[in-house]
């Protein structure tokens, strides 16, 4: 049975740590020939230039080749082909498939029917495990550990899949959470239940201000206009949830601010020069983490 990566919950604590360890190794030397002769398909049923380029760069720098499509409009699915058939067809050509799909659960289904490993590059609002692993790698790299950290999650905690996956992944490492969200975008009940059941302490607030002064990680997410019925409420929330450089003055010296990008208004440009801003390095870390993920599903590393 091949090993796909569909959901962050597919990986044990040990597997997460070993991915992060090999990511560190790839960071030292990202250009190798370990995927020489391998073909990796990137099937993007919805566009995501950032994620696709990151995966494709990861493969190409390891000497592998890429086939695929970047938009469903140019693929056979626009002619009504089922996902099952597309996966079977592509698996005749490729050694592994990186897939982004707008429907939730598409990746799990693909992994069940595919003869080759599937890497989920996002299935609707459900899972995006390579994002979660690069978040963990960024936390590990900046804090030196994943254990016993206080993580402040800000913005759209209701629909933000990166937030939900990060909570699940961090649960292995004895974290404390601060959840800061407007009432409309509060963390869903099932994740509060998840924290309680796993003995994870958390607090909730609806204003950003300096509510993160005791945090080690400030994880900002995008507050999307579409999520609000009331546009006046959106305008209010948008401004309250913008991180400005002056707001960081009372924070811990080791604090780093992460953001899955793209950002819109959540972090003002004047934060970029602050050494506590880490979101661009975070994106770069994605390359090494994805090199580790591709290598793992192809069983080139443990």
């Amino acid at each position, binding site marked *: 049975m091949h090993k796909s990566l569909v*959901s962050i919950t597919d990986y044990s604590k040990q597997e997460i740590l070993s991915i992060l360890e090999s990511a560190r190794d790839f960071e030292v030397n990202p250009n190798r020939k370990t995927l020489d002769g391998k073909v990796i398909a990137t099937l993007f049923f919805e566009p995501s230039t950032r994620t696709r380029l990151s995966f494709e760069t990861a493969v190409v720098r390891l000497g592998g080749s890429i086939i695929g499509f970047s938009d469903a409009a140019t693929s056979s699915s626009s002619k009504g082909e*089922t*996902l*099952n058939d597309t996966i079977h067809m592509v698996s005749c050509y490729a050694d592994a498939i990186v897939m982004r*799909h*707008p*429907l*939730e*659960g*598409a990746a*799990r*289904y693909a992994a069940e029917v595919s003869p080759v490993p599937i890497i989920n590059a996002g*299935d*609707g*609002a*459900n*899972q995006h495990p390579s994002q979660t692993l690069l978040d963990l790698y960024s936390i590990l790299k900046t804090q030196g550990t994943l254990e016993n950290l206080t993580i402040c999650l800000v913005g759209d905690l209701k629909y933000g899949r990166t937030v939900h996956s990060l909570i699940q992944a961090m649960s292995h490492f004895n974290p404390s959470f601060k959840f800061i969200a407007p009432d409309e975008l509060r963390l869903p009940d*099932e994740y509060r*239940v998840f924290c309680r059941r796993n003995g994870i302490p958390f607090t909730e607030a609806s204003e950003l201000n300096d509510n993160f002064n005791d945090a080690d990680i400030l994880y900002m997410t995008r507050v999307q206009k579409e999520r609000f019925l009331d546009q006046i409420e959106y305008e209010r929330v948008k401004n309250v949830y913008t991180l400005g450089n002056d707001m960081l003055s009372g924070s811990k010296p080791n604090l780093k601010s992460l953001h899955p990008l793209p950002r819109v208004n959540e972090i003002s440009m004047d934060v970029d020069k602050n050494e506590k801003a880490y979101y661009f390095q975070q994106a770069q870390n994605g390359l090494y983490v994805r090199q580790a993920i591709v290598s793992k599903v192809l069983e080139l590393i443990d």
Partner: protein
Amino acid sequence: MEKELKVAALRNGTVIDHIPADKLFQVVSILQLKNTNYPITIGNNLESKHIGTKGIIKIADRILSEDETGKIALVAPNATINIIGEYKVIEKRPLVPADEVHDLVYCANPVCITNHQPVPTNFYVLKDNGHVKLKCRYCEREFLREEIKLKKK
């Protein structure tokens, strides 16, 4: 006495009693009684001391499997299931929800792959503080028992 007039006694088979009246036809659907050749008696809107109005199903000469009772437990957790042999109750079957349900219900998430492609649904049944929840194997969303809709067979 009046009860016996309404529904004939069963010699061998299964009696499912105390089904909430609004769930009767869901149980009929789960057991696929539309297509059965066994003699069946179905009653509904009968008076019940416990639940107001109830439904009852008697199936002659057939004993339900645990898989079937596990599915009934999802829609009518307080029904009673008695296995009858020679006019006597020989087994009271406890209604324990199945651990997994395969292609029985629709996923309540409109953007789940199972609602858009020919993918059979699969749910894990979670028991949480007396609440029964179903977790979709594909989209990973959780739903309360009350939110789910049976597939039409």
